[in-house]
């Protein structure tokens, strides 16, 4: 079942994951933060981050939106969309 979530809660959790994956301070992560603002957030790190977020939130993002993310806020919206619509990872 999809887990109810709200954007602030999601943002906090995404920031923590981002901090762990990219070794940065999660308190400095905001909705407007972009990849350019965080050292080491390159395409490979982005892939690692997306997979980790899918795992933690137990969702599977639509393939065509995987690279269509300009900032952390877009990522949060994507997570919320997927949890709300019930796009849950298999297994």
């Amino acid at each position, binding site marked *: 079942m999809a887990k109810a979530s709200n954007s602030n809660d999601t943002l906090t959790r995404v920031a923590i994951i981002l901090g762990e994956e990219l070794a940065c301070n999660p308190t400095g992560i905001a909705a407007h933060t972009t990849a350019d603002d965080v050292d080491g957030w390159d395409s*490979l790190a982005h*892939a690692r981050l*997306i*997979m980790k977020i899918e795992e933690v939130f137990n969702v599977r993002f639509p*393939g065509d939106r*995987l*690279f269509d993310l300009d900032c952390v806020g877009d990522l949060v919206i994507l997570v919320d969309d997927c949890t709300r619509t019930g796009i849950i990872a298999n297994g």
Partner: protein
Amino acid sequence: MARTIYEFAGQPDFELKSDRSHPVSMIVETPETEHADGLVFVIPGMGGERDKHYSEMIRRYIASKYNLVAVSVDAHCSTCRPNCSTEFGEVTIDIEPTSIVHALGYYVSQGGVVDVPLQNHNDVIALLRRDPSMTFKLKAMLEPPGRQYQNFGVLAALDHLTALHFLIDQGHKFDTGNVICIGSSHGGYIAHMMHKFAPNTINGIIDASAYTETVPSFIDGKWTEFDLTDGNFTYECSTTQKWQFVQPGDTTFFGPDRALIRDTAYGDHLAVIADASSKTCQFRMIHSTVDRVSSPYLKALQRDRLKARGFDVRLDVIGEADVDGKLIKSADHGMGIALNLLFDRYYPTMSRKVSKIDRERETELVFRGPKLSYALTYRQGQIHADATCSEISASEIETPAASQIAS
């Protein structure tokens, strides 16, 4: 979208006359539609693109956005670099013993003190590690999983084509008239090799910085393929390979024939391809003018020769001024181009071409070299590859003109 993993037996190494012990794996991302518009082989280079998370994202993106079956194949020796998070096993590093001894000599010559017993190479390495301010260069061989070796291109191309036949036989529903290959650097090179061996099967090639011929440092273990830094050690790495360059009579000799079959811009072989095909393959290539790994000159030559043979070819030549920080992040080899953006740029410029694929046509290709002929034939749905001594017909033996005889 469904993800499926398959394993199948790879083509035997017909050049070295040996079977394969390591199976070929592939990961297939299938779109949700009943019938996909085609299939794309995502062929990464040897570097970071091979990362398993990145590969998965690229496959899912292409499958979802373009309704294509997206496939990654762990073809022969594709996994040949350490420190990548790969889906297909780990590469180990084997440090050459003589270079450890040389490093110890350097350590002593620089005033280093040997104050512990040195009973084996591990003891030496531990000693050299103690002072991080002293740096050492060590020669290392990269050992791909399953005791594979650097064949360079031929087997990897055949493995991808075998994978395609395997998927068709498994009943995957996709348009076989729209098989695309995308790759950068070595991946793009493999794509061109696939077209060389199956000119009626590959409908499009999208490459960034793909070289056109063998890179000598990749097949001669004495050269350094790339450097790997680990603390105060720099490993000068080469991938394990079986070629040699001094005994022409031996099957392991890497002579002109071995080089020419691996040359995707060789005019005589392009003529063979053009004669045997409907010339349906569309080439979309992007290359830097300052690429130090893959010659921009040879790339331009490849474009010109393909065009002269009637193929639909586009080569975007990139200079320093074209670096935009988005698609093109640098003018160096690879140009930092993400495969998803590369696909977005070029795939919409391609069209499906109606043509039977090689196994339906039972294509026969013979690529002649100075001493060997490479024959690729499609029979009963399978590829058969062989390299035998060329038979030179009487008409091909040059007869001196009468005037030359007289003189």
